């Protein structure tokens, strides 16, 4: 099992996580994925990469360092993103009843270990 697969495996075990993937932040392309429940990995990689890129510019404009973690909460679930070294970003798509706190902890831990 590669390090990327191990990381995704831990994240997708959190209750309510519908899928997780590792994307190249700048390109918005999938590096590795573990998806369930009809999640479009390509779309998630591209869209999460674009959102994180925008937020990076926002935090930069505010004089802050890059985001460590992003949580987009929506009507039907959430999108979580944790930038990782090497221009990677760990992305997870969650259902509305997911354990966001646990997913966040797993993602922050995983993003740190990917360096």
């Amino acid at each position: 099992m590669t390090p990327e697969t191990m990381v995704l495996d831990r994240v997708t075990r959190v209750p309510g996580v519908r899928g997780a993937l590792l994307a190249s932040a700048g390109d918005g392309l999938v590096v590795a994925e573990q998806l369930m429940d009809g999640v479009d990995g390509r779309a998630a990689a591209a869209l999460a990469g674009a959102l994180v890129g925008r937020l990076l510019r926002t935090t930069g404009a505010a004089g802050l360092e890059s985001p460590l973690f992003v949580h987009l909460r929506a009507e039907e679930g959430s999108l979580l993103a944790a930038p990782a070294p090497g221009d990677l970003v760990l992305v997870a798509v969650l259902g509305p009843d997911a354990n966001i706190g646990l997913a966040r902890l797993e993602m922050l831990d995983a993003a740190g270990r990917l360096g």
Partner: protein
Amino acid sequence: MSDEIRALTARLADEPTSLAFLELGEALRRRGQYDAAAKVARGGLSRYPGLADAHDLVARILSDQGDLAGAFDAWADAIRLDPMRSSALKGLAFLYFRAGEVPAALEHLARAAEADPDDVTIPAAIARIEQEVRETSAPPPPQEPAPVPASPADAPAASSPQSQTVSASTAPATPPSSPTVDSPFADFSDGERGLLLADANGLRLGGTLTAPGGGEAGDRVAAELGGVVREAGRASRLLGLGSWHSIAIETPAAFLVLVPPSGDTVLLASREPSMPMARLGLLAERAARVARRWLERGR
């Protein structure tokens, strides 16, 4: 196990799709069996996601368990489904009061009174809060555990409000009727600090944001927020998540929360990481409501 709970459990077992989960969940909650109550409530909610009663029950349980952010979300869902639901309005008022957001607490109690004019606890709670605001001349000590029901839903209808010791983590140092200049956030205890309102074109409407090194960063950040809103809307829509409610961003030196007060504006709330993100979310939601009213007045 009490007879009541035994009977309700049997009823729910016989008819899993019945609404008996509401009574059972409430009975378990009143007995302090929060985990069991939560399990029953969530099971019922999954079957009836459009039932305001179910969201209300979940909120009361979460509030009892100390998950105030979760309780807030659940009561907000109840309001969304039933805008005149006085128990949810009271619940939100309670949370705002606990967070020290007195005007928001009073606003919700006023709406609850409108929805349920026969509920005598509401005017009593309003009077109690207003009295406490008048009596408080200095910031109160840090919040202490108070002999108060975990949620206003617990208070029996005939209880005296004086017997409920309600404490707030902060109280405004200025009288409620603070002067409102040309700022949507003039009534906030910290003023405009760390609150930024921008329109869809990236222009700042109000509020200020100071960069860590000093200097005003509001205009620069506002210019970026339009793009963020578009990306967030696109991502949540195309990934089948529906419309987005908020974006929480953690950086080493600050937490940020973005919420949309209206279809064409976005609000950013920023605080140091010493403020828990969930609490910052509550602050952002309150600021968004204030901003919405300010915008409507302006229009």
